[in-house]
């Protein structure tokens, strides 16, 4: 007489995901990968700056025309912005909720301290916060131009040069990009773990890919302020 040991609930896919730690991590992994893909494109686009102001500004203008005539002017950009905003919010909200949970799950620290996990792993939370703050500044600086006193709409090349002509612009940007590198280094491999994509034979490939991605993105992004500082771009 085996008795049924479960109730017959049948929650939705999204409900199951959002209400469990594993599901929230899945949401973080997916949103993280969306952002990562965007960053790769963003970084490659940034490198256009080395071809001069005309090229770079034309590229920026072209971004607004993607999808025309099917899409209206700038619509693609707005769609991308909405998707990215959703990704950022999902990532941040899930991270916030999970972090609160994790901290509550380990209310008492060991009195004997020792670290084994890598620096990148241990700095995911603060790295995320730094990146979040940077994002706000970055948008205010180069998208809305609110905090970029010498900026002028429609002249992205000049605006970039203006930003990296100040010491604090360089410091903020470079620190954030180093944080980004660390974040991706653990985040990419972690996403693969979370999505169940890792396997014994694949672990090294994934870790190497994570390191390469982190390195390429950091170097790629940092190359712009360095170029401005060294006068290569002016």
């Amino acid at each position, binding site marked *: *007489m*085996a*008795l*049924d*040991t479960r109730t017959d609930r049948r929650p939705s896919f999204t409900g199951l995901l959002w209400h469990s730690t594993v599901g929230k991590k899945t949401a973080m992994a997916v949103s993280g990968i969306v952002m990562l893909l965007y960053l790769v494109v963003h970084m490659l686009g940034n490198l256009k700056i080395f071809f001069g102001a005309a090229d770079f500004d034309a590229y920026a203008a072209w971004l607004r025309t993607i999808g025309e005539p099917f899409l209206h002017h700038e619509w693609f950009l707005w769609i991308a912005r909405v998707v990215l905003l959703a990704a950022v919010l999902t990532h941040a909200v899930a991270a916030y909720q999970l972090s609160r949970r994790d901290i509550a799950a380990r209310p008492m620290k060991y009195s004997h301290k020792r670290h084994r996990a890598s620096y990148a792993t241990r700095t995911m939370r603060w790295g995320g916060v730094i990146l979040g703050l940077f994002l706000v500044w970055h948008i205010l600086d180069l998208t809305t131009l609110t905090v970029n006193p010498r900026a002028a709409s429609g002249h992205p090349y000049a605006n970039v040069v203006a930003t990296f002509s100040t010491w604090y612009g360089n410091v903020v940007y470079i620190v954030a990009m180093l944080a980004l590198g660390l974040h991706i280094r653990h985040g990419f491999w972690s996403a693969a773990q979370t999505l169940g994509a890792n396997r014994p034979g694949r672990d090294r490939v994934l870790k190497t890919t994570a390191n390469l991605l982190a390195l390429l993105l950091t170097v790629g992004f940092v190359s712009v302020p360095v170029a401005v500082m060294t006068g290569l771009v002016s």
Partner: protein
Amino acid sequence: MTAYTDYPTGAPVVDTKAPEGPIAERWDTRRFEAKLVNPANRRKHTVIVVGTGLAGGAAGATLAEQGYHVEQFCYQDSPRRAHSIAAQGGINAAKNYRNDGDSIHRLFYDTVKGGDFRARESNVHRLAQISVEIIDQCVAQGVPFAREYGGLLDTRSFGGVQVSRTFYARGQTGQQLLLGAYQALSRQTAAGNVNLHARTEMLDVIVVDGRARGIVARDLVTGRIDTYFADAVVLASGGYGNVFYLSTNAMNSNATAVWRAHRRGAYFANPCFTQIHPTCIPRTGDHQSKLTLMSESLRNDGRIWVPKAKGDARSPKDIPEDERDYYLERIYPAFGNLVPRDIASRAAKNVCDEGRGVGPGGQGVYLDFADAIARMGKAKVEEKYGNLFDMYARITAENPYEVPMRIYPAVHYTMGGLWVDYDLQTTVPGLFAIGEANFSDHGANRLGASALMQGLADGYFVLPSTINDYLARNPHHDEVDAGHPAAVAAVRETDERLAALLAVDGDRTPDSFHRELGELMWEYCGMARTEEGLRKALDRIPQIREEFWRRIKVPGTGEEFNQSLEKANRIVDYLELAELMCLDALHRAESCGGHFREESQTPDGEAARHDEEFSYVAAWEHGGSGGRPPGEHSAGTGAAPTLHKEDLVFEYVHPTQRSYA
């Protein structure tokens, strides 16, 4: 009061439940004759199960599946930690998957013979029959037995048996089988059919009008003592090897449940039948708290030796070949290092007693793989025994590939236990005992890989069938609650015993008494026993007990988590049980299986049985009343128990004397 050794002999005890007829049909006959409980009525019955090892876990899960309500107890923090988990080797089953001539009858024959003709044929045959179903059951539960490349189950030969009938999961068979039972139990716990009481230790049985109706148990976290009631009580609390202090049992394995049941009227059968395993890691000093077993498969390729000269302190490497005594090969040229467990153990003791033992305290012999490494190569040895070598290296910090291992026998299993009939019911109606807690199937010596088989057979198949008969024939008990005089008395006695332990406030720790008792038992009631030694022990035990109640120191209170109190209370029972073990060993003036009386040996030094005189089960009835104040009763010389004999009849396997020379 008569002296303890002047025990009276009472009426024979008879197993009234075992059916007559051809042995292969008896189990079917019994199941048919047994009354059943209507499925709709089962939920009205509560069964208490004490212990969550292979027997208890399997029984609790199965009874709950049948529809009974189960109250399940374990002293551990989780049912998954019961000591069945430590069994390494495997589980026997007469599947004959190898087509190597195995059969139910052969397993039956091997077990009766291996038990040196001191087990009941009916029980053993049933065990062999059920062995086949156990494997099916465990595989269905997802127990990851070793498999061959074709996906079918692998088996191996174990303990010198000529057929490969042992199923295994690397060296963790006990763990995997236990987790299977634990998971089945967990499923029933979630379904609300099992009410689990972890960290709760049974301290007494409540017997009302001659029937077991409940238990007294202590919540080990809060110290609260409570009563629990049921229609039947099942003890699955394991063996009593920890009487010896050092054994391969878990630290907290104890005899309290069975001993308290014994004091409430359950007969204790063959208490002197203890098994000593030859291949354990020797102790390193007085700090030693327990011993670790290594699979006896090591004897397949290792050679056992000691130096020829007494007190030879040279490193084994420096002892030349002609100064070594490969004593098993010398004494038993036909079987060599593969003689049965009891013989290998005793031979090791003999050479150490001669002063030729090796290692700290001279309590060890070498188990040397140098020849095996030369013959098979290190890689092959590593493949076969790597995990055992690693375990040895971790514990001893010696590299067994370079230096011979040191081994010494250790107490491992107790064949004796509560007397039960074919239905596994004790002499107290409604009180059942299963697994190592009962005495039923192994006679005077248990074969390797048979303990797991018996625990699961009892738990999954035998008890859940036979308990119906008792419950059906005793349908409407009066309600019993904590206010019943029997319950009040049992709780009061328990309270008083614990209070007495706390009140002594002496100058010796519980462990110091346990160690003292253990050394005494090992010396006089261990591998080889003599009348003189046993009498010495029987004189000494009451003295230790008296000293215990005068000098024990138990810190703290009873109303809290108090591991010293738990320990001390278990020692109270060991101090009484040890006496019965010695008495049983004294009275059985023959050698059989794990019980070796030096007075009774063949000319070539082997165990000599005396079937005409001792072909019976010795079932002891407790002599003292349970009602006296605990301190007074336990400190004094116990009243002599009464011996009840159950004659053993062999219709199918005819007793022969073992010979390995």
